[in-house]
Each structure stands twice: as structure tokens, then as C-alpha cells.
């Protein structure tokens, strides 16, 4: 079965540290890729997405992600985190053979200390 793996379940960083959250998926065909963020007590919001083209995708709030097809990965990065980035981050993958259903990772909880 298709799956999405987020390797880091909990990450704690200090402000200004760099961030990289891993996301790997198991499907070998064409994929669409998403990162969502959920701030404490709020609903999920789209950070960025990749459908095609430049594998380096820029999102909101200074986030970016790189699609590496050979590694089945879509890692999220931010060069300098802020306290306000404290949130849960979810990776999601849609494959061309899936009937309009995203496959979600379990999420990574990020805590940024001021």
C-alpha cells in the first residue's frame, strides 16, 4: 500500500536555527505533493505544493521544499525559524492512480524556543 513517512515526529529548535523536515513516499509513479501546517488550535493550511516543473518549490512564510524523484522525497526547509513557526507539519501525497484521495503522513510537531 502507498504510504507517506515523516521521519521526525517531534523537533525542538531555537529561534534562527535552520529547519529540515523529512517526507518520503512509497509510490513510484507521478505524484502531486503537499505540505500543510496546523498552528495550535487551528485548522490545516497549505504551506506549499508541487505538481510539476521546478522541483524546488517556494511556499508561504519563507518555507520551501525540494522534490527529489530518485529519492521519493519532498523535504521541507526553512533557513531560519521563528517562534511563530511552532506548529504541526503534515506531508501529503497524491498519486496518479489514486482516486482523489491524499495519503497523509503522521505529522511532525515543531516547537521553536524563543
Amino acid at each position, binding site marked *: 500500500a502507498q504510504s507517506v513517512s515523516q521521519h521526525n515526529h517531534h523537533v525542538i529548535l531555537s529561534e534562527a536555527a535552520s529547519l529540515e523536515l523529512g517526507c518520503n513516499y512509497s509510490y513510484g509513479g507521478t505524484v*502531486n505533493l*503537499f505540505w*500543510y501546517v496546523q498552528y495550535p488550535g*487551528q*485548522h*490545516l*493550511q*497549505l504551506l506549499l*505544493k508541487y*505538481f510539476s516543473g521546478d522541483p524546488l518549490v517556494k511556499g508561504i512564510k519563507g518555507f520551501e521544499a525540494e522534490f527529489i524523484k530518485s529519492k521519493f522525497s519532498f523535504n521541507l526547509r526553512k533557513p531560519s525559524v521563528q517562534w511563530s513557526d511552532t506548529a504541526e507539519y*503534515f506531508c*501529503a501525497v*497524491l498519486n496518479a492512480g*489514486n*482516486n*482523489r*484521495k*491524499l495519503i*497523509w*503522513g*503522521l*505529522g511532525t510537531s515543531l516547537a521553536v524556543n524563543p
Partner: protein
Amino acid sequence: DAGITQSPRHKVTETGTPVTLRCHQTENHRYMYWYRQDPGHGLRLIHYSYGVKDTDKGEVSDGYSVSRSKTEDFLLTLESATSSQTSVYFCAISLAGGADTQYFGPGTRLTVL
């Protein structure tokens, strides 16, 4: 933010009672989804709809039913609530389905005692 509301936002109920959660959108999006979010399980799809009266099951559909009689409303019903259905329920919408971005509602926190 997309125009998605969920009601109620919080509910406490007892085992065995029926519960209906409502998702309402003002975006005229064709696709609507119900997810549950639980610690350690992330987001799991319960049911989704690809048009009025067109619905299909997700990965955790047992114990849940849905209805969509209008484009703007997608109802999730727990016929006889159980404690295992205590969760946060999110509705999502998308314009074009699979490859399109999903936008999420604020969630409903349901507690089944």
C-alpha cells in the same frame, strides 16, 4: 481563508447516541471530504463526496455515514457513537478533486463518553 464552516465546534455526547456534524461551504467547490485527526494517526479520510448525492468511502468509514443533498452542505453522521469515535473532525473542500489543493474547515471536537 476558504469559506468553510463546521457545526457544532464542540460536542460531548454519550455512547449509543446518534450524532450529526455539518460542513458548510460558500465556495461552490465540487469535492468535499471528512477527516478525523487523532494523536499518532495523523489525518484519516472517513468519506468524501465528488458531487451532490455522489459519495464514497475513505479508509476509516465504518460507523459513519454521509449525505450531500446540496453542493454547499456535507453531513457526517455517527449512527451510534462509540468512545473510539472521540476525535477532532475536519471537513475539507477542493475545486477539482485529487490533484487540487484541499482547504480545511476549523474542525469539530467530539467527545463520546
